[in-house]
């Protein structure tokens, strides 16, 4: 229903009291609507599934290419690896050279959760997990080794479905 027309002078005179009333109404309605606070230690917040909580490592995907460690703005990723021989894929072939991961540590006391390592990983070895409860009384314990980073992998949500018309992922190895 359209508001009845008022002369401009009346409208201007009413501007101040109407403004005050609007402000008072806003705060009052907010008050009766109830708080949005989550009482965290007592109840757990539902974070969004793709929240940047912690970075998980899928060790078998890692090729020790060091791209993540080099891109990391905080230099908080420590990687060590060695070359190893594996039996050839086909009968009579040459043994393959593979990179083995010895050490993969992320120091979460330095990490600023930019996610560049996740972005830059060419083999999908790093994933975001929404878990966030891993604070430690001792700062040295914020350094997660590859075992601990691998445990986070269980909490990684399913990747969202590809958009319609997107290029199919190629060379996907199970």
């Amino acid at each position, binding site marked *: 229903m359209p508001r009845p027309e008022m002369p401009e002078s009346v409208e201007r005179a009413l501007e101040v009291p109407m403004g*005050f009333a609007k*402000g*008072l109404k*806003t*705060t*009052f309605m*907010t*008050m009766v*609507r*109830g*708080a*949005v*606070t989550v*009482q965290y230690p007592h109840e757990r917040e539902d974070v969004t599934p793709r929240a940047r909580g912690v970075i998980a490592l899928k060790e078998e995907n890692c090729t020790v290419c060091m791209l993540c460690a080099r891109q990391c703005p905080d230099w908080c990723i420590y990687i060590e690896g060695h070359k190893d021989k594996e039996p050839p894929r086909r009968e009579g072939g040459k043994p393959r050279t593979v990179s083995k991961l010895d050490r993969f540590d992320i120091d979460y006391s330095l990490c600023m959760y930019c996610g560049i390592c996740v972005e830059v990983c060419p083999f999908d070895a790093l994933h975001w997990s929404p878990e966030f409860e891993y604070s430690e009384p001792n700062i040295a314990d914020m350094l997660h080794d590859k075992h601990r980073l691998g445990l986070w992998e269980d909490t990684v949500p399913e990747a969202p479905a590809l958009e319609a018309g997107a290029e199919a992922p190629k060379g996907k190895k199970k």
Partner: protein
Amino acid sequence: MTLPLAAHTFLGIRGAYWNVTALKVAAVLGIALGGAGAFVYLFLFKMMSHMQSRLGPMEAGPHGSMQLMAEVLKFLQKEDVFPERADRWVFAAAPAVVLMSTFMIYVVIPAGPRLVVANLDTGILFALAVSSLSVIGVLMAGWSSANKYSLIGGLRAAGQLIAYELPLVLAVVGVVMQAGSLSLQRIVYSQAHFKLFGVGGFGLFAIPQFVGLFLFLVAAQAELGQTPFDMPVAESEVVTGYMTEYTGLRFLIFFIGEFATGFALAGIGATLFLGGWYFPGYGLHWGNLAWARELVGLGVLVAKVMVIAFLIFWVRFTFPRFREDQLQAFAWKYLIPLSLVNILVTGVAKVAVHA
């Protein structure tokens, strides 16, 4: 030979002067501190939080009700710092002056037919007079701190308190004229018997004195330095004004003073405009239930105080602060003329009705 001590009474309790005085002091302290605490918890902690979509303190006690204890203990533990160049005696005395002016208001507010510390014939005049004493404490604090923010804050506070004292007093004049008395008890009784166009039973002056109520609320807001009028403690300009250099217990005293004054002014507002401890149906002649009468009166008064306080804090939590010149212009150009018109209309109406 022992000197006969004059017998005094308070609430029907007879005793020696000092005993009765101690009782009265305890009553004022209890009401003032309890009232200030209730204001801080109900309004500053809970109402403000909910107006900002949050819960406020929840951990200390059920729904954070023991948070006040924690805050007071925190302030008591803090070091009592004096600035190097401060005028030590004045600096130390300033919070006491503010608190004293607050406590003295409680002396005259009636909370029942007999529940009043001193039923002065000039009660409202006394209350307004002692409430303006806090200006002296604020100026002392501002000047003695040897800090430019304190000084500017103190001067702003003084200018504001004086500017808004006038509309406050002039708003009260309308009620006093209508009641025909300066005694707060008389004003309550005259509201109890008040009739509008021959229809009685409202028990409040807020209907004929609605302009006065509006003026009183605005002026009380400014007197208390609540937010649209919190220029003296504007943290983005003068840190916390005259309180900048205060720590620990002395800061706590200023803080309690602010909210205890709020409770007192809301009590005066409730007494003048909402009928005080009286409500329609209250048995003024419940002869044999004297204590019940006082207790019901106290409850009714506190409920009305909460209504006034809700309005004051509602505005506080809603609006941003005035600029200093707007603040002064608002008092002198709008509120004072309006209150003078209110007095004129009240006078004419009173004569016309009685003629």
